[in-house]
């Protein structure tokens, strides 16, 4: 029995429900991105990010004295502009006439699948293209300048700030080289370096790198490095002191291949799970959804629109560390 005009509302409900189910399943698959990015709704086209440094001013207050006013230093600023992505999902006249329901639902679910895969890759690419400030073409085909508020790439040896001349590096270092391959020594050294991190005012503000993020090729090695009871690959019987310290091993399937086809399987990252969302941000005006057509074209097709509108970027970056694994 053909799908008639009077069935429009029912078909729309049905398609939206199927597509939302696909989206929710994909969101579950995007657990790594969701745990690293601060994903929020934003009603304006642009989001102005302001970094505040210091919060100095908490001091000894003698009895009877006024409390000092907290003093924040405004650091760098950056503006992220949202872009729209989408496609028309057609339910053609003949699909309806011949009741090709499988095709109709397939075309709708595939489009959401495609959108969510590209969304997840766009997040992964922020890390994978994070070692150079050169512009790249993202998974949507847009040119992206991967610089943060200090005009440097996400991972760099000399991140600067707007208030003092202090700099910090968030390139993973094994004690000798930046960008080391995934080794126990590199994890131990970087974890210690982060614990000794000082803010622009020179105050020690420990960063507890408790998450290791790798692609599938490094999964086995990472599990052995983090969870073996004894030090893996060595003849002595020392306990593996890393066990229990790096609590989260996140295997992000997209980290092995960048959207430009470059093999990035040696790349690996560490993060402080409680603070990394201060670094990586995404703002949505429209989260991915299938919107019903408001008008029916003359050819009788029903043109649903799959749309998402978002921006992404990175802010103050000491809470995320990265290595290309080349050294």
């Amino acid at each position: 029995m053909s799908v008639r005009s009077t069935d429009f509302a029912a078909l729309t409900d049905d398609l939206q429900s199927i597509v939302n189910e696909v989206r929710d399943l994909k969101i579950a698959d995007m657990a790594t991105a969701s745990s690293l990015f601060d994903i929020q709704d934003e009603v304006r086209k642009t989001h102005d990010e302001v970094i505040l440094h210091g919060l100095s001013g908490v001091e000894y207050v003698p009895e009877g004295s006024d409390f000092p006013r907290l003093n924040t230093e405004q650091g760098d600023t950056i503006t992220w502009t949202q872009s729209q992505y989408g496609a028309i999902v057609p339910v053609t006249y003949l699909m309806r006439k011949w009741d090709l329901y499988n095709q109709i639902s397939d075309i709708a679910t595939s489009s959401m699948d495609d959108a969510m895969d590209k969304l997840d890759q766009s997040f992964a690419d922020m890390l994978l293209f994070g070692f150079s400030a050169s512009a790249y073409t993202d998974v949507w085909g847009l040119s992206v300048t991967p610089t943060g508020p200090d005009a440097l790439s996400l991972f760099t040896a000399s991140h600067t700030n707007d208030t003092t001349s202090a700099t910090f590096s968030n390139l993973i270092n094994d004690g000798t080289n930046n960008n080391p391959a995934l080794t126990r020594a590199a994890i131990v050294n970087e974890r210690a370096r982060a614990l000794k991190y000082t803010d622009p005012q020179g105050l020690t503000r420990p960063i507890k790198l408790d998450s290791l993020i790798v692609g599938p090729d490094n999964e086995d090695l990472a599990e052995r490095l983090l969870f073996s009871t004894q030090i893996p690959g060595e003849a002595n019987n020392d306990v593996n002191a890393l066990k229990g310290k790096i609590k989260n091993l996140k295997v992000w399937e997209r980290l092995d291949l960048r959207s430009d086809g470059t093999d990035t399987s040696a790349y690996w990252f560490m993060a402080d799970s409680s603070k990394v969302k201060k670094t990586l941000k995404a703002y949505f005006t429209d989260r991915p959804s299938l919107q019903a057509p408001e008008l029916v074209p003359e050819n009788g097709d029903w043109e649903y629109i799959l749309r998402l509108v978002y921006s992404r970027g990175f802010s103050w970056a000491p809470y995320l560390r990265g290595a290309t694994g080349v050294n």
Partner: protein
Amino acid sequence: MNSGVNWSRLYTQDRCKSIGIPWNEEEARAVFALKIPADYVRQGCLTLEAYEAARGKREDSEKKTGKIALVHLKRNQLVALCDKYGIRTTDDALKPILVEALLQAGAPKSIAIEDVPKAED
């Protein structure tokens, strides 16, 4: 991820090479770790040796000719020169823009040291 970085502010703080051009790793190391003045790094001095050589060459040249290149003047000195040439400026005009405007207005690439306006940044 089209981002609006505050390039002019970063440039005046010597935290980027030029508007829209960030420091690369080597240049950032020269500026922030070796503390080489940014103007010299912009001209390609990435080591202390290269910086010392370029500085010596500049001092020799200034002594010999009694002239200083526009690119080595401070911003306020360039603004004062612009006034002299009838060029209107705003606070947003960066040093390279002022130099370019002066050259287009017919100023020489170098001026006599005694003609340098007394203006401090």
